[in-house]
């Protein structure tokens, strides 16, 4: 499956990945409208972690043995059979936050509504996730590990 490799040494901490993630997951898909009208309703699936001059952009690792799927009591957290991505079915999520507790990367967050989990979906429908496509320093790289 396709995986995003984080090149920590090239991350410049600009936060453009977060910006484009918000746009991609907005209704309008228009950067200005997304930030004007929908910003509060979207939690970006990628987060830039910063400490001094070090930074890296972290999103769900879509683990092979995903602890969040194990921990989910409703089956909302599941693996997409086609892409292999770990996705959250918000219709089934009850907001127990066991996925957040179980995630070793801290990549699952509470959604903006505060009721369901929110996470990276590897940009459904896009060949290249927008955080990868818009990183100005190629600190996020899309790799195909060959496994389906």
């Amino acid at each position, binding site marked *: 499956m396709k995986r995003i490799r984080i*090149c920590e*040494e*090239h*991350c*410049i*901490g*600009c*936060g*453009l990945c*977060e*910006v*484009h993630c918000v746009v991609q997951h907005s209704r309008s898909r228009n*950067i*200005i409208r997304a*930030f*004007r009208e929908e*910003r509060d309703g979207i939690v970006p699936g990628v987060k830039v972690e910063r400490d*001094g*001059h070090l930074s890296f952009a972290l999103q769900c690792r879509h683990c092979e043995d995903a602890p969040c799927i194990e921990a989910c009591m409703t089956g909302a957290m599941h693996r997409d059979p086609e892409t292999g991505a770990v996705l959250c079915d918000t219709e089934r999520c009850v907001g127990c936050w066991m996925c957040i507790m179980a995630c070793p990367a801290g990549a699952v967050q509470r959604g903006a509504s505060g009721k369901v989990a929110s996470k990276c979906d590897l940009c459904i429908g896009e060949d290249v996730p927008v955080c990868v496509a*818009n990183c*100005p*320093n*190629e*600190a996020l790289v899309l790799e195909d590990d060959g496994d389906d």
Partner: protein
Amino acid sequence: MPEWLTQAEFVIERDPERCIQCKVCVRQCANEVHRFDAELGEVFSDSDKCVGCHRCVSLCPTNALSVRQVELDFRSNANWTPQAIRNIYKQAEQGGVLLTGMGNPEPLPVYWDRMLLNASQVTNPSIDPLREPMELLTYLGAKPTRLKYEGGDEPRLETELGPQLELQVPVMFSTMSYGSISYNASLALARAASEVGTYANTGEGGLHAGIRPFAKNMIVQVASGRFGVDADYLNAAAAVEIKIGQGAKPGIGGHLPGEKVTAEISATRMIPLGTDAISPAPHHDIYSIEDLRQLIYAIKETTRYRKPVGVKIAAVHHIAAIASGAVRAGADFVAIDGYRGGTGAAPTMIRNNVGIPIEFALAAVDARLREEGIRQDASLVVAGSFRCAADVVKAIALGADACYIGTGALVAMGCHLCQKCYTGRCNWGIATQDPYLTRRLNPNIAVRRLVNLLESWRHEIKEIMGGMGINAVESLRGNRDHLRGIGLTDRELNALGIQMAGE
């Protein structure tokens, strides 16, 4: 004392309709121009500190920012230009020498723009480089005056050739030290040179262990500070260059402030951590051509005569005599740096007012070496602002063997010529050692861009040569018949050794 007379050089315009308060500009400006006011939830800009590097403009995802140069902030006066007034205010407030970076930006004539190239029409056929072979291979080093063969069915060359540098394209990356530029930038230049088959130059920065694997595509420099020089360093590289002068600051030494001498730089330059790296203005063991000869031969001995040894000099008055002396002293190539050559830091007055144009220096040196019958003893490398493939072709037609590009290479890596290299706060991650800023230059991207640049110039040089009906760079070299001058006086045409357009 408040700097109340100094006014902002740039004004930042933020389109409130487009700004989404994403704070990318805040994070990207090392000069702290953009500031997020958490209470108001808004980003504000302080134009005073802006250096016009356009980092924020380039990264703004909504194109909400533009940076404009302030033009009408002084009463107009053709003599007292805003820059002249600003310089005086700055010096009156702070005292001291005005510092700057990059090459001479003054509106002085660029003679490349006053020379035009020839093309074939009717009487001689032009060549299509996509269909016919076109040779750009260039060898730098002393050439024999005549070749001796051993006859027979399979002739064998008897003459022993001196060491040569083999260039796939007659363009090399100019002298830029690790210290003046970041490790990532140095690494990118070395990697790109080895990918294309040309050379990068260490400058006086020593050879970092990480760059050593690319040393066969590096020219190492021996400058007046002798930083990082030992037998191992000299033997690791493809060639050695003795730096006498630099186009941006002829007659001036260098000074890398102690705060930039990090652990890595101190190891590479072989100097104590945190100490100023001072390169004296002259080499204190070179006060004559004879002294220069001693150093050249000391290096040749150390490298067992296996590496070409060159001399880099700044283009100044009597350059022809100086270059001739360098060749007679045993230089295998002479690099001449014109007055538009770049620098990481130089006194503004020196950069803007000392030296001569590379066009005249090259024409004079090539002519002089030919007159004296020693042109074959050394190759000529020219530097000092080669902006495009046409500049390179014109230089070769005027007599150069190859060109050095420094600023052009930096621009390819993202430099926006803000001329603030000396502050160490390069927002593009090039002329800085700040670990927060150096990350901004991903060497993989930089290598790709540098290789693209040289590849495109290679194609363009071939196209231009093809149009002239020339199929090898050897036939173009010193072929001034293919140059014509426009808007030049008789004396300028004579000095350049070219005819006027229409002749």
